[in-house]
């Protein structure tokens, strides 16, 4: 069989999608595929480009992979820019002279950033924002810079401004038009956006035309029409994109008046055998600067090549995004340009929220919408728009804040099967339903099967709704039950244990559960029992309930050895104690490391060594640090007023007080705290579950922050508290959390899921609206009063110590735990480094 020669020029997001879609087809065997890729690496996720500054690597962003293309049998020419198409000879040539002939050609050359021809724009400190190399250059230039200016206040410009701000620069946005994001937003929306962005510390100059850029004392001076000037260290142009059509132009293909390769419904150019897809293509005088329409074009061409009929008839350009932390959404005809369009607008200046719906003259269909500051209604409005669903009788309720009762919710159930759920991958509700009926039982499985929600992620909430609803319809339980052994939520179980004064897991299982229990309910119930009754976790009835870390009161490491973390309250430690840590580490050959929590971790202890190590630490005055427990971890502190010239309160003393008060408190998840001596915040209190910052008059209390996977800044909860009130609030806050949170829920997620959120929490803790205040405090007093160092109790109890035997029938060591030395300390040997021990037959 003679294969058809297929060349793809351009390996960006759309080119990649094309290749990937083709690879899923059996017809791929019919083609010999060659790809010209101008960039040094195959396609990557340009949509999430900015995350490159937030720590994601080129590898994380990669979409295409060299090996993958090879597996698919494609020839990938990296670093090869196609410079000529000879349509007579059907030949493509690259800059370096690589020549290939084609039967079919696909142009996916994307677009390039437009740089306005302002004199001085070619200066070395002027950048654009399109490729990884652009970002590398910006990062390098920002190192010695103070100020950065973005020219262009559209969607990308604001994203670039955010990036500059994250790089630590004072950021400015210069926009020629009257308002920001003028393509997507109407005037009102754009004003609210501007206020929000300015309040975040980005300077906005709208209605401003740049006339000249010149060098001035090693910096750049921008001169604006009307005479104003601005000094900066670097400039990023984000003044729009232009279709990359140069190759098509020299090949004599038909172009639009303002550029763009003209295509028809088949995505064919003026040459039958040449297709154009993505941002380089012009359909009905429009270029589509988003991935979703490009993906639709790509699928269209794949279908045609496989002999099917398909057509591209334009695309919806609705978008929802977060710019500098401000939510913005734009749907359909946002400007109300349709004849007879009517608008309904809601403005909340205090909170910076602007919402506007555009309806037809009768108010029965949704033509478009603009949302700034709050896009929670976006998914629902988009479905009304895309599926032409009749609006409810009072459409304004769709955007008004819920007063009494819920706004009329458009449940996922009321969407037609044809409704598009994920526009990135063109997945309809019908396909999602089919996937669930075909056996997918979790969101993850549905994502894998349909690819929905694996692009921009904007559709994830809606997808979850549909999956849940469908699972429920199939009679599968979508519930918050702890696990199959208890048909209760954690909160309900907490209540049962408390009211019925249940003391053991088996009692609870017998009276309210079934079966034997599992690795989910056992530790969760153990935690509830500990929060309420604070028995030693090793008392017989609790022994089998604990995760290994709690069982052995140490953190298991990858090779089965353990780490030891003694408590160092507030990070304050005497020289004598430091010396003991060193001596113990040396004696037992432990790897030592300063942790991120202001204490010292000793790694590599064998199970049977743990009691001896702890005996020595306890003799020197140490206590367990609960690094293994879902409980209070550390309270970080800064040196505070005792030493620091800026400190206004004794932050160390407060941190010590707090750590000693709450140590040992078992909770749904771990709890971290910090105390800073002044607003400079050296202890990073605003990233903790409980953060305390000193003021002239006392303490500011912050709650519900965390680092980790999904970092969240803590919210300011109460200000200028005296010591006693501070502790009272923390007592109540923590106990309310312990009582009502779900298993493994950090305070942030708990609070976000509490109806009424932070305000409600204030009502409960500060105003004592539920009348629970005293009870919560009493419960906390009980926990504080019954504290024991678990390790101290354990080393004095022979029965408990029996657990710390590697083998119950011999004193030998586990010979498969092997260490080697690195940088003067032990570390677990890698597999290849272990001399094979007698392997069981």
């Amino acid at each position, binding site marked *: 069989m003679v294969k058809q020669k297929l060349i793809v020029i351009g390996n960006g997001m759309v080119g990649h999608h094309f290749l990937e879609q083709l690879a899923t087809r059996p017809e791929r065997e019919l083609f010999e595929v060659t790809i010209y890729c101008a960039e040094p690496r195959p396609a990557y996720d340009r949509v999430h480009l900015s995350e490159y500054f937030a720590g994601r690597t080129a590898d994380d962003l990669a979409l295409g992979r060299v090996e993958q293309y090879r597996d698919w049998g494609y020839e990938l020419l990296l670093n090869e820019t196609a410079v000529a198409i000879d349509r007579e000879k059907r030949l493509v040539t690259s800059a370096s002279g690589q020549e290939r002939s084609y039967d079919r050609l696909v142009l996916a050359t994307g677009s390039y950033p437009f740089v306005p021809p302002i004199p001085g724009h070619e200066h070395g400190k002027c950048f654009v924002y399109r490729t990884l190399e652009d970002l590398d250059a910006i990062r390098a230039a920002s190192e010695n810079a103070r100020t950065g200016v973005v020219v262009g206040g559209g969607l990308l410009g604001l994203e670039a401004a955010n990036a500059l701000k994250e790089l630590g620069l004072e950021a400015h946005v210069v926009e020629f038009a009257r308002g920001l994001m003028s393509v997507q937003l109407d005037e009102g929306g754009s004003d609210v956006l501007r206020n929000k962005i300015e309040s975040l510390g980005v300077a906005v100059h709208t209605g401003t035309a740049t006339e000249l850029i010149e060098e001035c004392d090693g910096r750049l001076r921008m001169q604006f029409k009307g005479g104003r000037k601005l000094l900066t260290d670097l400039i990023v142009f984000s003044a729009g994109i232009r279709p990359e059509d140069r190759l098509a132009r020299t090949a004599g293909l038909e172009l639009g008046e303002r550029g763009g390769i003209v295509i028809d419904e088949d995505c064919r150019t003026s040459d039958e055998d040449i297709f154009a897809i993505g941002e380089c293509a012009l359909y009905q005088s429009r270029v589509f600067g988003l991935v979703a329409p490009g993906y639709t074009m790509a699928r269209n061409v794949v279908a045609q090549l496989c002999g099917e009929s398909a057509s591209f008839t334009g695309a919806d350009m609705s978008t929802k995004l977060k710019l500098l932390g401000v939510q913005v959404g734009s749907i359909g005809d946002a400007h109300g340009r349709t004849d007879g369009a009517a608008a309904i607008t809601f403005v909340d200046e205090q909170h910076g929220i602007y919402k506007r719906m555009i309806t037809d003259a009768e108010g029965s269909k949704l033509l478009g919408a603009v949302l700034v500051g709050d896009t929670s209604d976006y998914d629902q409005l988009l479905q009304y728009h895309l599926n032409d669903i009749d609006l409810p009788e009072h459409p304004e309720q769709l955007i008004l804040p819920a007063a009494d009762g819920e706004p009329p919710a458009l449940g996922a159930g009321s969407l037609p099967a044809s409704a598009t759920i994920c526009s990135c991958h063109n997945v309809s509700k019908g396909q999602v339903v089919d996937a669930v009926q075909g056996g997918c039982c979790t969101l993850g499985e549905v994502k894998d099967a349909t690819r929905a929600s694996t692009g921009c992620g904007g559709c994830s909430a809606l997808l979850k709704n549909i999956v849940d609803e469908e699972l429920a319809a199939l009679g599968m339980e979508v519930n918050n039950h702890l696990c199959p052994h208890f048909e209760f939520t954690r909160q309900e179980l907490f209540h049962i244990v408390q009211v019925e004064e249940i003391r053991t897991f088996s009692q609870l299982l017998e009276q309210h559960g079934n079966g034997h229990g599992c690795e989910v309910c056992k530790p969760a119930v153990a935690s509830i029992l500990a929060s309420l009754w604070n028995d030693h976790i090793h008392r017989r009835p609790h022994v089998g309930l604990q995760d290994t870390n709690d069982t052995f009161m140490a953190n298991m490491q*990858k090779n089965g050895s353990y780490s030891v973390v003694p408590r160092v309250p507030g990070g304050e430690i005497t020289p004598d104690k430091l010396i003991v840590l060193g001596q113990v580490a040396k004696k037992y050959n432990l790897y030592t490391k300063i942790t991120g929590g202001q204490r010292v971790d000793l790694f590599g202890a064998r199970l049977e060594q743990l009691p001896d190590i702890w005996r020595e630490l306890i003799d020197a005055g140490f206590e367990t640090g609960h690094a293994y427990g879902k409980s209070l971890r550390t309270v970080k502190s800064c040196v505070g007023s005792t030493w620091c010239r800026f400190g206004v309160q004794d932050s160390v003393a407060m941190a010590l007080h707090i750590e000693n008060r709450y140590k040992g408190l078992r909770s749904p998840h771990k709890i971290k705290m910090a105390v800073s001596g002044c607003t400079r915040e050296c202890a990073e209190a605003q990233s903790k579950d409980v953060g305390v910052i000193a003021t002239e008059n006392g303490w500011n209390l912050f709650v519900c922050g965390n680092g980790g996977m999904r970092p969240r800044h803590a919210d300011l909860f109460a200000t200028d508290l005296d010591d006693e009130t501070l502790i009272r609030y923390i007592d109540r806050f923590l106990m309310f959390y312990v009582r009502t949170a779900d298993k493994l829920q950090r305070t942030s997620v708990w609070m976000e899921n509490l109806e009424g959120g932070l305000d409600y929490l204030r009502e409960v803790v500060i105003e004592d609206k539920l009348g629970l205040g005293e009870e919560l405090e009493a419960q906390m007093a009980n926990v504080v009063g019954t504290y024991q160092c678990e390790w101290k109790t354990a080393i004095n109890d022979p029965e408990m110590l029996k657990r710390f035997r590697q083998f119950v029938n011999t004193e030998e060591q586990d010979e498969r735990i092997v260490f080697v030395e690195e940088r003067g300390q032990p570390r677990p040997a890698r597999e290849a480094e272990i001399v094979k021990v007698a392997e069981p037959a």
Partner: protein
Amino acid sequence: MTEVAINPTPWQPVCQRSDLVAESGVCVLAGGVSVTGPSTPRRSIALFFIPDSDPQLYAVDNWDPIAGAGVIARGLIAEVEGELTVASPLYKQHFRLRDGQCLEDPEIRLATYPAAFDGDTVVIIPMPEPT
């Protein structure tokens, strides 16, 4: 003079009932050169004692092939769809106690061993049960 087994038995005593922890696991080192029965390689074996199940005693390999560490004895006992399993303490895969099958990966199975009480003594045969 070496003692020679009069009544050779593959069952080896490994520990006492009081060494076991109800609803949880302990580890024994078993096998080796035997004078009372066949010699077998030395193995770390995890013993689980679940008083209200039948059988009450389970013996499986202590080596977790997924994590590459000898830690199975320190896992939590978990009932999954009516079957007793142990969840590996490192990456939480479930291994069925009665036959060692990993529920997450059909390719992986821990060896299991016959185990029983002889009065208050725990005895096992340190040779893998056939699958």
